[in-house]
C-alpha cells in the first residue's frame, strides 16, 4: 500500500509546487502611455461600425472611427470630422470637412469617403438596424473638396445629430467589405484616436493609439476591452487589479466599493427612462377587471385615474430604496441636460388621500383590479420595482397583481398579439432611450399616436393618442430654429406629462468603477470611452 500513499503525497506535492510557481501573477497598474484595461458588462458583437447600434458596439467603434459630428457628454453635437455646419435653406445643410485628417493607413479623408459611409451604413446585408432611420431621408452630394451638401425631403433640424450616429469609413477599403473583414481587422481602418489591433470574440478587443490623430492625444498607448458579464466577477477583476476600469457596477456592490481602498466610482445619469405605460387605445382592456371580477370599461382612459396612479407612486423611494442610488426619480421623458428637457416640470409628490379622491371622482371609489407586467432581466432590479409599484397602487385601492417574465418573452407580448391587434397587456413597465439625445425621438416614437404609414409612434405600444400633441410634434420635427424647436418640445413635454401619457419612474444612473488614480466623467449615452479616461493630476 505504500504506492498509494506515495502517489497521493506526490500528487499533493505537485499541486503545491504548481501553486508556488503561479505566485506573483499580477498585472501592472495603468500608467500614462501604458495600457488601460476596461471590462464591459456586454460583449461587443462586431467591429463593423454600421452593423448594430448598441452601447457595447458604439463604445468600441467610437475609438476606431470618427463621425462627422460628435456628441459631448450630454449628447449635444460638437465638431467631429466636420468643423462647421449650417442650414442653407429649409431642406439643405452644408458641412465643412476638417483639414488634414488621415486614416490609420495614412490616406487622407475625402468627401467621397463620407458619402460612401452613409451609403454602406444603409445597406449592410442582414443588418439588425441599418441606420436608414437616420439616413434614409437624406441625399448627399459633394460641393467641393471639403464641403458636403445634405438634402432632406422635409426640413429636418436633427441632421447634425442624426449624422453623429454613423461612423465614417474609408471608401477604398470599405467597398465590398463584410462584417467579417472588420472583425479580422482588414477593413477596420478609421480616422479615430485608436487603431485596431485584435478582436477575439468573447475575449477581448485590443487597440493602439493613433499618433497622427487630429484631436487631443489620449493618455493611453494601448487599450484592452474585455467582456465580463457577471457583475460580481467584474468587481472582483477590478479589485484584483486585473482590469483598470469596469462599467455597470452592480447595485449590491456600490456600498462596499465606496469604502474599498484604491477604487473610485463615477456616476452619470443615463438618457434612458424607465416608465409605466397604460392601455389607452381600447375600450375594454384585457387585464383590467372590477373588484368583483366583472368586466369594466378601461379605467386608464380617464385622466383622473392616471393622475391618481401618478400620485400614488413614490418615485424617490423606489430610486433610493430599491435601486440603491442606481436611478434618479424621473419627472419627464429625458433627464436634465438633454435638449428638450423642461426645467419647469416638477416631480409629483406622492399624496395618497388626493389619489383616492381622484379615483372616487372617476367613479371608482373602490378601485379595480389590474395586472402589471414587466421584464425580469432587462433593467436594474426590474422585478422589485414592479412589485413596489404594485404595492403602492394597492394602497389606493387598485388591487395590482404582478407578472414578470424574461425580456425575450415580454417584448413580444407587449408589442402585439392581444385584442384589437394591440398589446397583450394592459399596464406594464418598460424603458426607452434614444441614441440621438434630443427629446424628439421620445416624442416621435412614444408620445405621438401610432401611425404605421408615417412611421410615428413605433414604441407607443399601448396607443396613447392626442391629436393636438401630434400636430405640435410634427411641427417641431420640421422646425430648424433651435430655440423655437426647444420651446415647442418643452411645451409638448409639459402637456404630455400633465396628461400622464406615460408615467416616467426613473432614469438609470450608470456607475463606473475604476482605480482611484483614474477619472472619467460619465456620459448620458452610457458609452465608455478610453480616450476620456485620464490619470488624476
Amino acid at each position: 500500500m505504500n504506492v498509494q500513499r506515495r502517489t497521493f503525497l506526490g500528487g499533493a506535492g505537485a499541486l503545491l509546487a504548481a501553486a508556488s510557481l503561479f505566485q506573483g501573477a499580477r498585472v501592472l497598474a495603468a500608467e500614462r502611455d501604458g495600457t488601460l484595461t476596461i471590462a464591459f458588462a456586454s460583449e461587443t458583437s462586431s467591429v463593423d461600425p454600421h452593423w448594430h447600434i448598441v452601447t457595447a458596439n458604439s463604445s468600441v467603434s467610437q475609438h476606431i472611427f470618427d463621425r462627422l459630428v460628435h456628441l459631448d457628454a450630454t449628447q449635444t453635437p460638437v465638431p467631429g470630422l466636420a468643423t462647421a455646419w449650417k442650414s442653407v435653406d429649409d431642406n439643405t445643410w452644408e458641412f465643412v470637412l476638417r483639414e488634414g485628417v488621415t486614416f490609420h493607413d495614412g490616406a487622407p479623408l475625402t468627401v467621397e469617403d463620407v458619402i460612401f459611409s452613409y451609403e454602406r451604413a444603409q445597406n449592410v446585408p442582414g443588418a439588425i438596424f441599418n441606420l436608414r432611420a437616420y439616413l434614409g431621408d437624406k441625399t448627399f452630394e459633394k460641393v467641393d473638396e471639403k464641403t458636403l451638401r445634405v438634402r432632406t425631403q422635409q426640413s429636418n433640424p436633427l441632421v447634425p445629430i442624426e449624422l453623429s450616429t454613423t461612423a465614417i469609413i474609408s471608401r477604398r477599403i470599405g467597398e465590398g467589405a463584410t462584417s467579417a473583414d472588420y472583425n479580422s481587422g482588414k477593413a477596420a481602418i478609421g480616422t479615430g484616436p485608436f487603431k485596431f489591433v485584435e478582436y477575439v470574440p468573447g475575449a477581448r478587443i485590443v487597440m493602439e493609439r493613433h499618433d497622427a490623430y487630429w484631436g487631443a492625444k489620449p493618455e493611453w498607448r494601448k487599450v484592452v476591452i474585455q467582456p465580463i458579464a457577471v457583475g460580481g466577477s467584474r468587481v472582483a477583476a477590478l479589485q484584483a487589479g486585473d482590469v483598470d476600469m469596469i462599467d455597470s457596477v452592480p447595485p449590491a456592490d456600490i456600498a462596499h466599493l465606496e469604502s474599498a481602498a484604491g477604487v473610485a466610482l463615477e456616476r452619470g445619469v443615463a438618457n434612458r427612462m424607465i416608465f409605466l405605460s397604460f392601455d389607452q387605445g381600447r375600450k375594454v382592456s384585457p387585464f383590467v377587471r372590477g373588484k368583483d371580477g366583472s368586466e369594466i370599461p378601461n379605467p386608464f382612459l380617464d385622466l383622473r385615474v392616471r393622475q391618481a396612479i401618478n400620485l400614488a407612486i413614490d418615485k424617490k423611494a423606489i430610486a433610493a430604496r430599491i435601486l440603491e442610488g442606481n436611478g434618479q426619480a424621473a419627472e419627464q421623458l429625458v433627464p436634465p441636460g438633454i435638449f428638450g428637457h423642461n426645467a419647469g416640470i416638477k416631480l409629483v409628490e406622492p399624496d395618497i388621500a388626493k389619489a383616492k379622491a381622484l379615483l372616487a371622482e372617476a367613479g371608482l371609489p373602490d378601485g379595480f383590479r389590474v395586472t402589471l407586467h414587466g421584464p425580469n432581466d432587462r433593467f436594474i432590479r426590474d422585478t422589485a420595482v414592479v412589485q413596489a409599484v404594485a404595492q403602492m397602487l394597492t394602497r389606493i385601492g387598485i388591487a395590482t397583481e404582478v407578472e414578470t417574465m424574461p425580456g425575450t418573452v415580454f417584448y413580444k407580448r407587449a408589442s402585439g398579439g392581444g385584442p384589437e391587434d394591440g398589446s397583450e397587456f394592459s399596464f406594464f413597465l418598460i424603458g426607452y432611450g434614444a441614441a440621438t439625445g434630443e427629446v424628439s425621438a421620445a416624442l416621435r416614437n412614444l408620445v405621438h399616436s401610432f401611425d404605421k404609414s408615417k412611421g410615428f409612434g413605433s414604441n407607443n405600444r399601448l396607443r396613447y393618442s392626442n391629436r393636438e400633441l401630434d400636430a405640435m410634434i410634427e411641427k417641431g420635427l420640421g422646425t430648424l430654429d433651435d430655440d423655437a424647436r426647444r420651446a415647442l418640445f418643452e411645451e409638448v413635454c409639459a402637456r404630455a406629462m400633465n396628461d400622464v401619457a406615460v408615467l416616467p419612474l426613473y432614469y438609470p444612473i450608470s456607475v463606473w468603477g475604476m482605480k482611484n488614480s483614474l477619472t472619467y466623467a460619465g456620459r448620458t449615452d452610457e458609452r465608455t470611452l478610453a480616450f476620456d479616461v485620464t490619470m488624476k493630476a
Partner: protein
Amino acid sequence: MLVSLLRRLIQATFVLVAMTVIVFLGVNVIGNPVDILISPQADQAERTRLIAEFGLDQPVWIQYFEFVKGALQGDLGTSYVFNEPALKIILQHLPATLELAVAATLMSVAIGIPLGLYAGLRPKSLPTRIIMAGSILGFSLPTFWVGMLLILCFAVYLGWFPSSGRGDTVTVFGIPWSFLTLDGLQHMLLPAFNLALFKTSLILRLTRAGVQEVMPQDYIRLARAKGLSNRRIVAVHVLKNVLIPVVTVVGLEFGSIIAFSVVTEKIFAWPGMGKLIIDSINVLDRPVMVAYLMIIVVLFILINLVVDVLYTILDPRIRLNAGRGR
C-alpha cells in the same frame, strides 16, 4: 467492429435529424428575435424589412426546409447578432471550452482516482474520513458560489491568479490555445478547478466503491496467493476493474462540461461556448442556438463512441457488436 460503427453512424444521423426538428420548433416558440434586437428608433417599415430579411415571415416548415438545405451544404445560418456564419462563431468559441473541459477532466481524474483508491484501500483511516467528508462538500456546494469564492480568495486577496478571462494564447494549427503559455495556464487553473470539483468528488466516490467491491473477490485473493506484489495487484487487477464505471462517468461528464459549463464560464468570463449560448438565448439569436445544439449532439455521439471503444480495451468480454461477438 466496422459494421457496428456503421450502424451507430446511421443511428446518429437519425438522432441528428430528430434534434433539428425539435430544436427548430422549440426556438420558434420562444419569442420573436426582431422584438429583442431591433433599435427603439426603428419604424414599422424597418421592422417589416428585417422580418423579411431574416425569413421570419415564412411559415415554420419553409424556414425549416431552408435551414436543412443550408445545413446540407455546411451552412447553419448567419448569426443575427454577429453577422458571421453561426458555425464559424461556435468553432471560434469551441477551443476555449474544449481546453477548459480537458483541463477540468484531467484534474478530476488525477485527483479523484488516487484519492478514491486510497479511500477504498484504507476505509477506516483518518485521511479517508477527511477525503470522504471533503467529497460531500465537493458535491453539494453550488458552482457559482465556489467560483466567486475562488476568485475572492485567490485573485482578490492573495493575488496569485488572475480573476477572469483567458490570458495569452498561442496559435497552433490556426487555433488559439492558452494551455501552452504560462499566463494562459494561470488563467485556466481557477475555472478548471471550479469545474473539476464536482467531478472529482464523483470519480473519487465511484473509485472507492469499486475498490471495496473488487478487493474481497477471489481473483484478488488468488493474485495475492500467487505472490504478486501489492503494487501490481492494485495497479493492474484492481484498477482495471474499477475503471469501467469511472470511464463511463468521465465520458458523460466530459460531454456535460463542454455543453453546460455555462456558470463557470460566465463567472470567470471564459470566452467559451457556454457563455455564447446563454447570450444567444437572451437575444434569441436562432442560427447560433440551432448550430450550437447540433454541434453538442455530434459531440455527445462521438464521446459515447469513444467510451464504448474504451470499454472493449478495458474489458475484453465486452464487444461493440454485442449479440454476435460472443
